[in-house]
């Protein structure tokens, strides 16, 4: 048993900390809320130069050959300043989906420029009414000559407004709810039949509602077998939420502690009030517990599918409960200032709310793992 970081991993973390401090303090996320894209191509390129997007990909496609664990170490640090670039969307969601399904040529063509920080990607897996169920897909794919045409609507596609390529799930057969018949397609930005509506999300970022009206698409991998890959990338998204959430909680905890240490009322520092002290301690406890299960999620990203699902569901349930607790208590302990848009706390609060609602909320994950055979294997 070993929870120490390797020297390479430590260096990675330090690089990310430096990046956050020098290139992307929280003020950047605040400012980019007003931006139409919501993130910055120059920063994205810099992240590419740092090699971050290459981490989990094999050398054959220009990757570094590392593991998801390294990616998540970065994600944790990015969480501390809410770095808004589409790192998780491009690397862990669409990127891994392409890696798992695409031909060598597709991998090279679609992943290469993303790894370099020249393009970004998005995964369009969910639809209105599918909530968190990746099998609940109504979008249909039909062969049209050598290519495919997609018809349907994808909902709240993270980074869908800016991505150079979308990875879209669609049915080549079967009915919503069935695992068989799900396929993945690459759809280029501005391809014919694609109508992208930008939507603003609470956390100051953007997503898209993507209407597909016979949209030109290329099949990734073989038709009808994408369910397992969709499960995997959704689990990776959940693990990333755990990592980013851990970074957020740590930040909010210490921001709150600092406030308690300095804010005076009734002639004393409010941090002397025992009731507030105990609540800060509970924030600390939840932060530590969520950090612990975020490590769990990170380790289990490469476990066999059933173990991965079982353990990541537990971690995401913990993250959601702990994360909401920490940012809500943090707000209350800040008093009035915490509900002003001017204070950074609200940015973390909102991002945490988003992380809770993405990749399966607490109920979803509790129901998922408690319905698996492991739950009753006594």
């Amino acid at each position: 048993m070993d929870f120490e970081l390797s020297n390479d991993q430590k260096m990675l973390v330090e690089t990310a900390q430096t990046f956050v401090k020098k290139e992307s303090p929280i003020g950047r996320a605040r400012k980019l809320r007003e931006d139409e894209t919501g993130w910055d191509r120059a920063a994205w390129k810099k992240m590419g130069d740092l090699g971050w997007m290459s981490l989990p990909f094999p050398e054959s496609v220009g990757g570094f050959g590392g593991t998801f664990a390294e990616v998540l170490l970065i994600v944790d640090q990015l969480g501390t300043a809410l770095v808004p670039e589409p790192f998780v969307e491009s690397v862990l969601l669409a990127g891994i989906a392409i890696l798992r399904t695409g031909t060598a040529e597709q991998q090279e063509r679609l992943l290469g420029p993303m790894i370099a920080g020249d393009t970004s990607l998005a995964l369009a897996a969910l639809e209105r009414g599918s909530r968190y169920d990746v099998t609940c897909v109504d979008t249909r794919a039909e062969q049209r000559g050598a290519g495919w045409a997609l018809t349907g609507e994808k909902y709240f596609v993270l980074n869908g407004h800016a991505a150079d390529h979308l990875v879209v799930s669609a049915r080549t057969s079967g009915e919503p709810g069935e695992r068989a018949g799900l396929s993945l397609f690459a759809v280029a930005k501005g391809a014919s039949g694609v109508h992208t509506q930008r939507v603003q999300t609470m956390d100051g970022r953007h997503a898209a509602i993507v209407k597909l009206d016979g949209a030109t698409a290329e099949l990734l991998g073989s038709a009808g077998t994408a369910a397992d890959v969709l499960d995997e990338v959704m689990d990776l998204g959940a693990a990333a939420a755990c990592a980013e959430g851990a970074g957020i909680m740590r930040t909010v905890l210490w921001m709150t502690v600092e406030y308690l240490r300095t804010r005076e009322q009734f002639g004393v520092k409010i941090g002397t009030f025992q009731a507030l002290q105990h609540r800060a301690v509970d924030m600390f406890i939840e932060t530590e517990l969520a950090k612990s299960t975020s490590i769990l999620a990170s380790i289990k990203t490469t476990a066999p599918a059933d173990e991965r699902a079982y353990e990541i569901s537990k971690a995401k349930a913990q993250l959601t409960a702990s994360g909401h607790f920490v940012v809500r208590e943090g707000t209350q302990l800040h008093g009035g200032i915490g509900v002003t848009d001017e204070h950074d706390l609200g940015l973390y609060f909102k991002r945490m709310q988003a992380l809770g609602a993405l990749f399966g909320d607490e109920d979803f994950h509790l129901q998922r793992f408690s319905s698996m055979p492991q739950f009753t294997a006594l």
Partner: protein
Amino acid sequence: MDMSFSPEHLAFREEVRAWIAQALPEDLATIAKVDGHFEHTDVMRWHKLLAAKGWVAPQWPQAVGGPGWDATQRFIFSQELELSGTPMLSPFGLMMVGPLIIQFGSPAQKARFLPKIFAGEEVWCQGYSEPNAGSDLASLQMRADDDGQGNFVVNGQKTWTTYAQYADWIFTLVRTDTTSKKQQGISFLLIDMKTPGIEVRPFLTTGGTPAFCETWFENVVVPKENLVGPLHGGWTLAKALLGHERTLIAAVGQSSRVLRRVKKIALETTASGKRLLDDPAIRLRIAKMEVKLRSIEMANFRALAGAQLGHAPGPESSILKIRGSEVIQQMFELAMDVMGPASLTWFNEPGVVPADQEFVGSTFNYIRASTIYGGSNEIQRNVIAKMILGLPSK
């Protein structure tokens, strides 16, 4: 013991409902239907309609325009307004400075201010908190110095001056004696917002709406006739205000609306092709919130029934602010969870989510303030510990 309303009260409720249904302008009704955001002008239009009907100040004595209702009628009226989703009126004139002027003001002050508050011709805001005097209000530092010519000269800063950008007047707590102990040198002063030297800067809440302001006062000259109550006696007025209409602060009506909305969303939303309301986890969470709401509602009924009989508010009423504000927050947390990923929509074009879900996210954020404003729940707990439980201070 009886929970039913008398036939007279039932008839009154019907009258109120019918009037609201016909009086609320169509464009406001459309917003009300989806719990949308009302602009200041919307609020004042509704204020004036209620004023014209004579229903705008239920808690005022009849002599100054009140309708002469009993406690139950006031409760019914307030609940009907909340349930129908009509614009929430600005409380600063009607509920706060108005009653204080009625209780402590001079005849001239009453004549000058009350009719315009009633008619909605003058809008008020509140100047209590300062950057270093929030929970610890008695630490306030804004000064009002006697200029020897019949005026105070006011210097300092107020914050959380909600909707000061729309206000014609502000009622303030100011320090008139800097030598005596904290609470004792404070006075209650009315200030015309058009006076030179006042600067208002609105700022956004986390809900994305401009509800709060910072307000600066630089050598603002205020005639002494605007002092309400005795010089240095402002703390008494501030405390008196806290006693007013405690039974109306549980937000039961608002919470009921949100609960109904949550059920509606859960009926309309599908997950894996099934109605979300049929998801046992969601249903139980909603049920649990209904239980909590019902318990506050009952506590509110008890307080109300006591008020109806002329009893002073009992201990049960002191819990209403704490739990009411917590429950409304939890209701919005639940609403967000029921909406799922779509809950993240943020001031988008119509159609991204159903219209009645559009503003849930904004209010979910803003409502975090409910446990902070009006005396934070921590302060409320301190007060209950001391005043009701009799726990010792150090």
